[in-house]
Each structure stands twice: as structure tokens, then as C-alpha cells.
């Protein structure tokens, strides 16, 4: 059924597991730091992407699948999510264009 014969070792899983938990703890540390919200957000986003990457690569066995699977799936999702960033322009506009402010 599954032709990807490669089996990750349990130690590898454990390492990834610990790494994910450590990153989660790291995020909490960042959350309590006294820097502006945008920087907190960016750091958290990067860490979350690293976490997700670890989960996809190891837990979800993307590493041992054919490369084409990753090339078929991931760019699609990343592309669509990247395009949604066009929303932000309007979100910022709402801030200073709320009515009845004057």
C-alpha cells in the first residue's frame, strides 16, 4: 500500500516533538517581551512556520514522500495564502477612515 518504505526512527520523532514544544515555549517568552505588537507578530509567525514545517516534514512524512507531492501541494497553499495578503491594505485604511470620528 505504502511504497515509501522509509521509516523515521523513534529518536527522530522524539527530537522533533521536543523541538515543537520548545518553540511553543519560546513563543510564550516572546509574547511577554516588551516590544511592539508588529515585531511580536512577525517573530511568532516565523516560529509558527518553523513548527508547521517540522510537523509537515517529519510527523506527516513529507520527507519520505516523492518530491513531486510536496511540489504539487505546498506551493498551491502557500500561493493562495500569500495572495490573501492583499487584504491588509484595506484593513489599515479602516483605522483612520471610520465614520463619525469628526
Amino acid at each position, binding site marked *: 500500500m505504502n511504497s515509501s518504505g522509509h521509516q523515521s526512527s523513534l529518536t527522530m520523532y522524539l527530537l522533533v516533538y521536543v523541538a515543537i514544544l520548545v518553540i511553543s515555549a519560546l513563543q510564550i517568552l516572546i509574547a511577554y517581551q516588551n516590544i511592539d505588537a508588529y515585531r511580536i507578530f512577525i517573530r511568532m509567525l516565523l516560529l509558527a512556520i518553523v513548527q508547521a514545517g517540522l510537523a509537515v516534514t517529519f510527523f506527516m512524512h513529507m520527507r519520505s514522500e516523492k518530491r513531486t507531492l510536496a511540489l504539487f501541494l505546498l506551493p498551491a497553499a502557500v500561493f493562495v495564502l500569500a495572495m490573501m495578503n492583499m487584504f491588509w491594505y484595506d484593513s489599515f485604511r479602516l483605522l483612520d477612515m*471610520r*465614520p*463619525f470620528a469628526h
Partner: protein
Amino acid sequence: MGKIVAVTLVLITIASAVPILAHKWVPPDDISTHGYLIDEQMSDTMVEAGICFVAAQMILAAFIWMFSNRKPGDKIRNFPGGAMGLVIGAFVLVGLEVLALGFFGSKAWAAIYFTPPSADALPVQVQAGQFAFYFRYQGPDGKFGPIHPDKINESTQNFYGLDMDDDPASKDDIVTAEMGIPVNKEVRLLMHSKDLGHSFYVRELRIQQDFVPGLDLQMHFTATKVGRYEIVCTQLCGLGHYNMKAYLNVMSQPDYDAWIKQQASMQ
């Protein structure tokens, strides 16, 4: 049958092109300072689109005429240049056209939207609601009184929710149902919606902008011709939508002064 298809296509193409070529169906005369950009862009696009339309339909018709139900002995032939020729041709020609249209279109857009209004522009506030527009002028003090949405009441004619007792700035505000502006003077339009999405469309001014609830939008324009023009709502806003309209009255400066005085006395 193929030949009938071809002839029909040619006839449809001609019938479609004639009204355009006859200049019968054109936008009403432009009365704004920025409208010529849109009109020029429109006629440029019309030329390119018209050529593409006629050419494509005619070639399609010609090929259908030539190649439908041929004699059994006729050989299958290939289009000269093959697919690669067509692809490269399309890339170059359409690409250039797209770039040109996009570039000039952007310039027109930028001229309209990326230029700030001048400092002495006449501010006019417009509020869209089901199913009417109301306009507000600052009056002599040059200030708009604050809007209190909870005080909006159609039956007492307090369309803007003004508090006449506590806000001194509101006292001389002039609220009208018709928009009067002086000719050749820049107008800064402050737009907000009272309830839901509406739109502000004046064909002659080449202006259209949706009202978005929860968003204060601004536009500025200069009308160059005296006259009475229709303002319509183009967003479906309810059962009375077809009846939602107001008039834009472009007047000479003395006429405008008299008009605004008369409106002020009616408040």
C-alpha cells in the same frame, strides 16, 4: 450550413460594430476636469478592442466558410507558422497591448485618485441612506457639526443626526436634498453611508464610488459646465433602489451663493 454560419457571423460582427462606429452610443458629454483622461482611455481601448473583435470574428467566419464540408480529396493542412507562431504572436502583440493599456490606464487612475484635493476645495458631505442622498454644507463657520447617529430622525428632518442645542458648529450647517456646487470650483466630497452599501454615480462627471458602511471615503472633482445632472445609486440597496437618486446642480458662482443662502434660510 457552414457558409450560413460564416455569413451570420459576418453580419453579426457588422451589426455589432456599426453602432460603435456611428458614435451613436457614447458617454454623455464630460463636465469634469479629469473626465477627459477616462474618455481618452476608453476610446483608445475601444479602437484596440474593436480591431480585435472584428478581426477575430471575421477570421473565424472566413475559416468556417473555407473549411466546412470540404471535398473528400482535400488534404488536412496546418496553419502557417503553427502553434508556436501564434503563441509568440499573441505574447508579443497582446503583451504590448496589455502593457500599453495598463500603463496609460494607471496614469489616468493615478491622476484621479492619487492627487490630493486642493486646500480651498469646497467640502460637501454626502450621506446615503435608504433611499435618498442628503448633502451637507459647512455654513459660514467652516465647520461640520458632529453627527450623532442615535439622533438621526427622518420625521423631524434631522437626516444627519445633528445636535442643534449642544453643538455650536451644527447650527449653521446646511442640509439639502439636492447637491448644488459652483462651476469650475473643486469640490471635496466626504461620503458616508447611514445604513448599507450605496453608490454615488454621476455619468457626466465620470465619477462613481461606492458608499461603504463603516468607512468614510473622499473624492474630489471639478465640474466645468453649468447644468442639472442626475446622481444615481448603482448598488442594489433595497426595494426602493430604483427610486434612489438626487440631482447635482452645477451653478455659476453668483447663482450658487444665492442658492446656498436660500437653503440656509430654509433650515
